[in-house]
């Protein structure tokens, strides 16, 4: 729709203004990132000497090295490396599970509606708004009963369960806009419930799969509450390790390592945003727009 608006002579000034605004906002947005980057490149003494957000006098990558492979988390001085792996082991199955289940739920709730389907959807949807602090203890008990306590599979199960609510929302709203005739055609062609889902519906849902994966990936990767509650020690996800590096009470904070660690912890999500960001907006356009 933009072309419709851009024309005429005085438009040039307007465009200058638009670019100006965008760049200023972008710079403001980048400010915390800049603080993090410069801090991570400074030696600790410089920071405690009072230089917090200025340009570093000495640039060193020690903090990054330390954060990745040397920093102590408790008495284990392994850096973030092993926890990074833990997080990957957690996030990949959890995202895959919640997205997969959400997709099939959305499929059923739109293409195989049964009496009460809307009610079921409403039940699932309300789960999106649950304050998680409220359910830690019962969840711990349940995981204990299931023998999943303190393990990555347990954490995957927790994330997947609560993720279903959001992914179902995403997929349902997307599938509502897919013509029902597609399903009917496949049925006449002789395809069954799963075959239609797998061969016809799923291949058309790439944009919303991307949206769902980005959202879930961000939420699960950055989760701390469940991580700290349901895992321990060497099976912790990266946010818990990050917390242990950062959240020092009666010790001295190593700000440079903290910042480097935070950025290392954020790399996967940043990569996901940058690589898939284009599809993100497209996917939202395609259907997730309805709340």
């Amino acid at each position, binding site marked *: *729709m*933009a*072309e*419709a608006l*851009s024309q005429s002579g005085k438009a040039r000034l307007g465009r200058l203004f*638009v670019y100006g*605004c*965008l760049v200023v*906002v972008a710079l403001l*947005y*980048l*400010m*915390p*990132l800049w603080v*993090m980057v410069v801090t991570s490149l400074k030696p600790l003494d410089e920071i405690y000497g009072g230089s*917090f*957000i200025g340009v570093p006098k000495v640039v060193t990558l020690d903090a990054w090295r330390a954060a990745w492979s040397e920093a102590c988390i408790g008495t284990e001085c392994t850096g973030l490396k092993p926890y990074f792996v833990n997080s990957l082991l957690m996030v990949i199955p959890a995202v895959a599970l919640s997205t997969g289940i959400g997709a099939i739920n959305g499929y059923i709730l*739109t293409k*195989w509606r*049964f009496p009460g389907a*809307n009610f*079921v959807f*409403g*039940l*699932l*949807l309300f*789960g*999106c708004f*649950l*304050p998680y*602090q*409220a*359910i830690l203890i019962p*969840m711990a008990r*349940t995981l204990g009963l299931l023998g999943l306590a303190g393990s990555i599979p347990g954490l995957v199960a927790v994330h997947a*369960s609560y993720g279903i609510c959001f992914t179902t929302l995403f997929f349902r709203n997307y599938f*509502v806009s897919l013509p*029902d005739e597609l399903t009917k055609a496949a*049925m006449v062609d002789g395809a*069954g*419930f799963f075959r239609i889902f797998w061969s016809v519906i799923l291949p058309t849902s790439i944009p919303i799969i991307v949206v769902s994966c980005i959202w879930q990936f*961000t939420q699960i990767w*950055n989760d701390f509450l469940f991580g700290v509650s349901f895992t321990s020690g060497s099976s912790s996800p990266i946010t818990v390790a990050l*917390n242990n590096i*950062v*959240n020092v009470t009666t010790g001295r904070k190593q*700000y440079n390592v903290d*910042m480097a*660690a935070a950025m290392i*912890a954020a790399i996967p999500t*940043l990569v996901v*945003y940058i690589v898939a*960001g284009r599809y*993100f*907006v497209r996917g*939202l*356009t395609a259907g997730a*727009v*309805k*709340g």
Partner: protein
Amino acid sequence: MSASTRMSSRLAGWLPRIVVAPSLLVVIVTVYLFILWTGVISVTSSKFVPTYDFVGLEQYVRLWATPRWHTAVANLFIFSALFLALSTGLGLLMAILLDQNIRAEGALRAIYLYPMALSFIVTGTAWKWIMNPGLGVQKVVNDLGWTDFRFDWITNPDTAIYTVVVAGVWQSSGFAMAIFLAGLRGIDNSVIKAAQIEGASLPLIYRQIIIPMLRPAMLSVIVLLSYIAIKSFDLVLALTNGGPGTATELPSTFMFSATFRRNQMGVGAASAVMMLMTVAAIIVPYLYSELRSENNG
């Protein structure tokens, strides 16, 4: 209108329900059963660990007699209102600007979106420094010569909550922007042309025509942002840790500290129930109307 269909065998007809049942079961247990459990705790005298002796609404009375909880509730309203208004406004503005055929759209979009990707455990520290009058923005501006410039909200209990709003807006407005952008991309070009022919100026066109047309996008932005507002936890912990004093306490931090730091599990559960009720009061009517109108349409 849907392909709700019959199949030859009974089992096949039940297949969709059978497939959706496990998810439903999981959600019923992990959401509703757990809510119920929390509700039960809130009417017991539980302190350190759950105990199951019924004490009526005592914990609620206690909760509402706690000044800290009042602060938390008041803050939730201030924070949610400002956070929603500013994130929505800023997101909308950026989306509109980004929609003007911008050359570096991809890069700018990534910049606006990246805060969503970062964990607040550490960006909180960066913000803390930026807002600290002796280190951050105020110092930089003062050093540049404007010595009267003040940006010391974080030091004042009355204004500290606004710093949480600022950081929250920074984190979430990009997401609002993405949804609005998607909405804008879906608007019919010719509506704008029609308004142009009628002599409407660009700001007028946006104000009177395009923005009202973004209502569906607006709704989803508000739903998702409310979700973020209600769950704001890391944000407060990392930025102000509830301080100065208890000035930036929110219900979520209150709940956590009551349950895990103060041995008042009953009060924590009561506060959780209060929060859930607030959420339900807002969300349930909305869900109801959305799903109903879809049935009719």
